[in-house]
């Protein structure tokens, strides 16, 4: 089986990660690695992960998502996860995975707006290090 690769696109300051099929644990780990590498390489300031096509998320993927967010924020990049489907949200809540510290948005549009707002805020405050989770 050929390894499925999640595309990571750089759009302006943002790394756009669109997960387009259900992925297994190894692919998630690999994705984490590649996202962090890309942040370093492109000096991106924000990461947007679109999971609107995921119909189910297990506890491992759920935890990885929040891990990626924490890791990226240590590397000074804000992360927003967009497009979580109702069924996925219910599963995550039932699993007790609240993705604390991860920003969420309804779609890519909203996600980009949130990221832009946060960049603005950051510039104003000149804060460094971990960003508190902000729901716009």
């Amino acid at each position: 089986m050929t390894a499925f690769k999640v595309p990571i696109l750089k759009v302006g300051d943002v790394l756009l990660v669109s997960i387009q099929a259900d992925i297994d644990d190894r692919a998630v780990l690999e994705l984490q690695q590649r996202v962090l590498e890309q942040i370093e390489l492109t000096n991106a300031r924000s990461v947007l992960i679109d999971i609107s096509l995921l119909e189910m998320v297990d506890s491992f993927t759920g935890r990885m998502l929040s891990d990626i967010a924490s890791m990226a924020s240590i590397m000074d990049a804000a992360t927003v996860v967009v497009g979580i489907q109702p069924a996925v949200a219910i599963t995550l809540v039932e699993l007790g995975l609240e993705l604390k510290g991860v920003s969420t948005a309804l779609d890519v549009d909203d996600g980009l707006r949130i990221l832009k707002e946060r960049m603005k805020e950051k510039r104003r405050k000149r804060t460094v290090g971990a960003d508190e989770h902000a729901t716009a």
Partner: protein
Amino acid sequence: MTSENNTSQAAINPLTIKVLTEREDEILEIWMENRVNSSDFRETLISGEELRADSQSFLRAFITAIANSNVEEMRGKEFNAIRRLLLEISEARAAQAFSPSETAFYVFSLKESLLPFLRDAFRDDPETLLEELNKLSKALDKLGSFIFVTTIKNRERVIRQQQQDMLELSTPVVQIWDRIICLPLIGTLDSRRTQLMMERLLERIVKTRAEVAILDITGVPTVDTQVANYLIKTVTAVRLLGSTCIITGVGPSIAQTIVHLGIDLSGIITRNQLSDGIRQAFEMTRQRVVPINAPPDGEPSAEKGDTDDRVQSTYSESW
């Protein structure tokens, strides 16, 4: 005239059947008279004609059944017919708001109406009379308890149906403004309702791209640990979708209960009134309500001149 047929003790004496068949109309008359004059007859619930029609078909079916079937075991197609009839009667009675015991008593009351006719027929043979009465009484007892159980089953079905209806009625999601939706909750929350509510709310959020979802619990009488837990779960799920949940209608008694139960709602936006929640939602979606022709004090967007808009969107400013 002793029972000449000892092999089947259960069978009804032919004379009984003959008497009942011949004098069916008289029996019906007496039965109806007894019913109408009895204290538990309720004229407001059922008309005399309807009662008579039901009773006539029941009496006929009963006589046919005892004539052709084994009374002890209540088997055979005649008894199935009478069961079906009773099913119909009990359904009608339940719809007319008769209590199950009233419906059962209706069947039992046939006994005393049969008594004078049997007494006439077996005037010279008290032993057989007793035997026959016993058999008929047993058969009617069984039918009475059958109708009792059926009535209760019917009621349960009605209750279940109503519960289902209520469940569907009770979770409307209303769109208040662009990207603001509201879910007014009324009545007690249980796990099934909350599950349904959560699913509907989340689906609507995705469909309408709502940024703010207001959960109004004004109509929820009490909040216990379980309900609070559901609310927290819903709020978390809404956040995961990328929008924000506001809980409104938290009155004094609910606030007290929540604190006494030690439930932590600190991560959740709660408001006393639905209007406060709507105001908060406007703020969060970068909009505000201003009076017509009255420039808002010191707000920069007043110069735009579009004061006719009751809600001015300051959306573009955030970019």
